[in-house]
């Protein structure tokens, strides 16, 4: 039963070799003079801003609403992690399990409604 996870572990190795191979091939082509040596021109290494000279640092402030989204995601995703085992053993736990999950979900509905009222789901 557990040996299938070993198969996935072997696939992980293959999956990492596959893109590395593409990158290394591309890198190696510069020694047979198919690909230009880097950097061929220092201007190419400038930050791309459609031709304008970059002003200030690149790691600028961004919209604080992304934090709201992250918090909402944490709220609901943790809930989902707990729901998967329940769904898988649904027949064994039956009515009692259903009612308990209903109670569990109610807390999240309340939390979600609070977030909705506080306009956390609005953008701009």
């Amino acid at each position, binding site marked *: 039963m557990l*040996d*299938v*996870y070993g*198969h*996935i572990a*072997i*696939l*992980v190795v*293959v*999956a*990492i070799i*596959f*893109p*590395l191979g*593409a*990158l290394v*091939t*591309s*890198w190696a*082509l510069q020694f047979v003079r*198919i690909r*230009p040596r*880097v*950097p061929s021109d220092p201007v*190419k*290494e*400038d*930050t*791309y*801003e*459609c031709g304008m000279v970059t002003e200030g640092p*690149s*790691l600028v402030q*961004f*919209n604080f609403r*992304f934090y709201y*989204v*992250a918090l*909402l*995601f944490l709220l*609901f*995703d943790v809930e*989902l992690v707990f*729901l*998967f085992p329940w*769904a*898988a*053993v*649904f*027949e064994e736990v*039956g*009515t009692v399990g*259903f009612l308990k999950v*209903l109670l569990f*979900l109610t807390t999240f509905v309340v939390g*979600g409604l609070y977030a909705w009222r506080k306009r956390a*789901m*609005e*953008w*701009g």
Partner: protein
Amino acid sequence: MSGAPFLATEHWWDLRDLSNISREILEFLDRVGPDWLAYVVSPLIGFVAAFLLFVLPSQLFVGVYGERRLIGRMQSRLGPNRVGKFGLLQPIADAIKLIQKEAITPRGADKWVMWTAPVVFVAPAVLVWAVIPFGPNMVIADIPVGLVYFLAITALPVLAAFMAGWSGNNKYSLFGAMRVVAMAISYEVALVLGLLGVVLFTSTMSLQAIVEWQREHDIWLVFLQPLAFVIYFISASAELNRTPTDIAEAESEIVAGYLTEYSGMKWGLFYGMDIGYALAAAAFGSTVFLGGWSLFGLEEWVPPWLILVAKTHLFYFVFIWTRGTLPRLRIDQLMALAWKYMLPLAAINLLVVAAERLWWHEAGLGDGIVYLFAAANIALALLLVVGWARVLGYRPERVPTRPRLVKHVGGYVAPGAETGGGR
């Protein structure tokens, strides 16, 4: 995992079940090689069969070439038609071009993160195929939590996209990265809630068992879970950053989003595997919702893997279709769709499914009840989709569709001419 062989023949040349060939090879390796050889080679055979023989060619010729041609057709232009007959060699020309481009790392960029991001992006695209069943015995690793495995693996490219955007030392990259993460996590919640309904019905998270369940009950889960299917489709296209929802790479706003500073092979891996993920999402969707390799008994005669390939490409065609048809949405519209529309709908859907399943189990009803559930759920899905839009304040626009006579102008007014102009 399943004991009894599914097909009558076990000959290696029986192409309906390719696992026969793989078993022959593994038995031969067991005879001649050390003990661990067959164990190591068996996933590699799956990798070659699933990824190198199906996914990669399909990605190149259906994804890179077919998608561009089709979208070209839909948008009244030609698409690639120069390289080779009908432009069929375009993907290969693109690959050759990309691999010999110089690798530019902009000044001030985080070199290590920038080079690692494509690898982190591509590796999961290979790994997702490990759990997709191509046939009764044709799955690389039929793990009992295949569905969660798929969700976990497909969450990794979001990390890669963020790495790519953050490392580029570019404002647009950073904005694109923030948008990717915000979009992906918003739609993830609705997606997972929708898929929970599927798990409730099948009581298992193994994809092979989900296909078997649909085969036994002679019904596809798309009929039992229409709402979950629609949510899956929208969420998948949002997480893949495909056009109706591609604000992360919106070229009219933020250059190329998180890929602004990427070029050459690094960019090529991102581009190629975007299509790979679309294909994987299509394969997963057809496995979970459209019966996978089964087709109402036809899989005894037609190779099951061919059925899955056909379904995957049909599903993928719908992805291309929406991409060619719909305009890009704004970020506030997308966030509202995820949090205010799809999340409550998915939650209601989950409760309804749980109640149905409970009734089915407690009352000891027969399997025929699934058809009643299907009819009820389709009606409920329509009602919820229309009703919830009304609750949120959406009213259908009343735009005149036929020319109408306007007296004071002294003639007919074309449809939309009044609303389209001066205002």
